[in-house]
């Protein structure tokens, strides 16, 4: 029974990590109607800058403080140089341009940092594990990730509902021209929104550094899962991203954990393991297809 609780915790932790990534993506897509395949690249930049600074200064916090602006600034530069010309253009032009960005950033990291995966360790003060539930030692770093995820969720909620900029952003989302006519500097606003989106991706990157391998191309493996999350949740809605992320995190983790046991009841162990492994990897896509067929606009669509 403890194992089940621990797996739920693992599912939530993966969900929170996915939320950090998808909040930024759904923000950019929902508000600026821009499909940004290169979102994973800013996740990678956050991880690389975080790892490098942590290695030099020896402090994880400094690593984070360096990673966030790095991802945000790169994001804004990309927005000004490339994306700004693509707002009126077809989604497909954005797909092609951001596909080009992925190639550019992956190769850039290989040139600057070399081909070898970087090292990033869990900060000493988060290294141990805590017994949230007696008998189940849970890595305290992962609890920190969950805490950061929840904090970001609350901050975003407050930003959008309580602050003026939040209101301007939402106005810009529903009607660009009108918001512009009312004196909102749309160009600057969109640069800031994109910067915020990439900052969130950078944060997810630096948080993932100690757990996952920091290597060129790491962004693409999580990118697909992030798109699945925002589509399941409902594009453009932060609440949807949270719901989608937790759902995908749980389904993926529990699928990997309990599917083999489940199938063993019916098939021989060897055959069950093989089928379970491939079913587990398909589980996320089965989930998305089911949600889309049942609710073609996602679970919590952004605006009506």
């Amino acid at each position: 029974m403890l194992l089940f609780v621990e797996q739920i915790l693992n599912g939530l932790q993966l969900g929170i990590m996915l939320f950090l990534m998808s909040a930024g993506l759904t923000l950019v897509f929902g508000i600026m109607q821009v499909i940004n395949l290169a979102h994973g690249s800013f996740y990678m930049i956050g991880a690389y800058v975080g790892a490098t600074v942590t290695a030099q200064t020896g402090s994880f916090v400094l690593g984070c403080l360096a990673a966030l602006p790095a991802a945000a600034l790169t994001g804004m530069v990309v927005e000004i140089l490339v994306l700004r010309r693509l707002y009126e253009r077809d989604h497909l032009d954005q797909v092609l341009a951001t596909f080009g960005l992925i190639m550019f950033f992956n190769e850039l990291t290989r040139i600057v940092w070399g081909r070898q995966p970087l090292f990033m360790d869990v900060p000493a003060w988060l290294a141990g594990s805590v017994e949230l539930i007696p008998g189940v030692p849970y890595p305290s770093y992962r609890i920190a990730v969950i805490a950061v995820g929840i904090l970001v969720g609350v901050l975003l909620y407050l930003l959008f509902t309580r602050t003026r900029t939040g209101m301007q952003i939402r106005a810009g989302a529903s009607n660009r021209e009108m918001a512009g006519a009312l004196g909102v500097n749309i160009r600057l606003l969109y640069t800031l929104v994109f910067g915020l989106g990439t900052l969130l991706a950078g944060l997810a990157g630096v948080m993932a550094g100690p757990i996952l391998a920091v290597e060129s191309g790491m962004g693409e493996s999580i990118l697909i899962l992030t798109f699945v999350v925002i589509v399941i949740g409902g594009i453009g809605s932060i609440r949807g991203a949270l719901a989608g992320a937790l759902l995908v995190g749980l389904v993926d983790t529990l699928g990997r954990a309990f599917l083999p046991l489940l199938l063993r009841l019916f098939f021989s162990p060897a055959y069950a393991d093989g089928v379970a492994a491939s079913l587990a990897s398909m589980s996320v896509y089965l989930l998305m297809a089911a949600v889309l067929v049942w609710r073609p606009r996602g679970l919590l669509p952004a605006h009506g």
Partner: protein
Amino acid sequence: MNRKTLAITGGAILLLVLPLLAALLDEPYLVTLFSRILIYALAAVSLDLMLGFGGMVSLGHAAFFGVGAYAVCILSVHGFEGTPVLTWPFTVGGHESALLLWPLAVLLAALAAAVIGALSLRTSGMHFIMITLAFAQMLYYFFVSLETYGGDDGMSLFARNTMPGVDLADDRQFYYLCLAVLATFLFLAHRLVNSRFGMVVRGCKENERRMKTLGFPTFRYRLVCFVIAGAGAGLAGALITNQTEYVSPGLLHWTRSGEILVMVLLGGMGTLFGPVLGAAALLLMEEMLSIYTEHWMIYLGPFLILVVLFAKRGIYGWIAGGTGNHG
């Protein structure tokens, strides 16, 4: 529109004489490279039927490409070994003749497209893109789990298929076969796009709501268009199996669908000859750049961005001028 006809005839002549050119320059390798370009051009044109003319943006088109490829490879290997493919409902023996396998591959790809299309067309916009991706990834993991056929390691074809009168093993004959298949598909696509069916599909792309109030059951037409595109990709899959004599689940991965999509966009959406140019441009650049530098992606990435920013309607639009949408 002489610029357009000039571009098309120029391209056609170049493709026709290429093997002779290759022999002249003592570069026999170009023949196999361009066979691959022709095959990917076929996959890109089939995607453009659905994307450029039908407005259906799919990020899972490589699934049908892979289904066609695997169908031919599995049946050929069984044909070579003489073992039955299927024994349960009825015994299905393997075969190696292209005239039997390729139509079967096209049929299987069309069947897959019908099932996936029927479910995906209930959604629209970004959700349609993602659900096609989801189904393609499911097929990808299905083939990864097929251990009897090599799983993730893929499977080699012992010998290319056989066809009366054409020796597929000879690279030059295989090149001209690919060129003939592509040319036929382009001709049929041109007819299709301007036929009554083509008009309805293009109408649905423009304004599906209006089409419904005019009295068109739009779902059926878009599904048939989706299936035709899937069948085209299945045929390209059958050809790629014979060209590389090898298949792997990698053929169905979403990055492969992304590549085919990039070829269509790079070449020029909504035109029939654009994707052929797009396929040639992308594959040639990938090949040539990698000879001169390890870091070829640092050049190809920005090139794609520049094409999007400045050549509004892709390379074909830039060369042939005029607006897209009528092939």
